[in-house]
């Protein structure tokens, strides 16, 4: 099994928006507006359209999300199998870091 937790490493300033987009799409496909609302509810951060679509462009290019056809102007996006693996790996990595931080705080 290959490593997937480094898929977002070279996203630069789009790494955090990209992770939140993957989390937003984890429970089903969404279009840009729904993603923005969902991310705001989850994290308290509301991304501007330039940031949101900068991250979407990169995620789509890596094959981590896929655009679905729609009659509407607002195309929904869904998580791909690769995107799901990358999200699981990144969340596991964050959990490991959080556990270390909490353990150190507890013993301080």
């Amino acid at each position: 099994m290959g490593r997937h937790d480094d898929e977002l490493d070279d996203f630069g300033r789009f790494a955090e928006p990209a992770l939140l987009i993957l989390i937003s799409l984890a429970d089903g496909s969404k279009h840009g507006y729904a993603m923005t609302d969902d991310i705001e509810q989850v994290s308290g951060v509301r991304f501007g359209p330039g940031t949101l679509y900068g991250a979407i462009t990169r995620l789509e290019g890596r094959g981590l999300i896929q655009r679905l056809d729609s009659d509407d102007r607002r195309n929904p996006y869904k998580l791909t199998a690769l995107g799901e693996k990358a999200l699981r790996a990144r969340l596991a990595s964050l959990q490991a870091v959080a556990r270390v931080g909490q353990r150190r705080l507890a013993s301080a």
Partner: protein
Amino acid sequence: MTWILRLYPRPWRRRYGDEVAALLQGRGFSLRIAVDLIAGAIDVWLHPGVTLAAASAASPSTNEEEKTMLSRVLRLDCARTADSGISRADAWKAGATTILVTLALTLAWMALVVRFPRNDVVEALSSLPFFVGLLASMRYTYLKGRAVVVQATFIAMSVIVIAALLTAAGLIASAI
């Protein structure tokens, strides 16, 4: 605010323009969103390969025209940096000039929007700051090594022509 999307390259607009326009629909002017969109446009211009990768991943068979154009842009970009004697420092200077001039003139243009709201001519000039920034940066790239007079004349004439065209477009829009 959809006029800001004109700053994005055409292949990107073809792919995401409608979606972002739908996202902006009904919103009033917001400085935060305007700055976010302008920064996004600069990012897309600086990283054309990202849009190419998205177009390729999305539909290997239906975006041939888009991919061909972006491939040409990338090849031209590589050829230019390899053959023209443009150093890394020149490339940084050109990038910084484009960004700083664009931001400074965009702020000036925003002041005009506040002073003259819903003015078609002012709105038509929205993309002028980016063009001026891009042209100003050319003294470190395409115009490198030319006499200062030649550089200044080329940049000034280009700015005048583009400003005249945009103003004409604004006047036509206000007359319709």
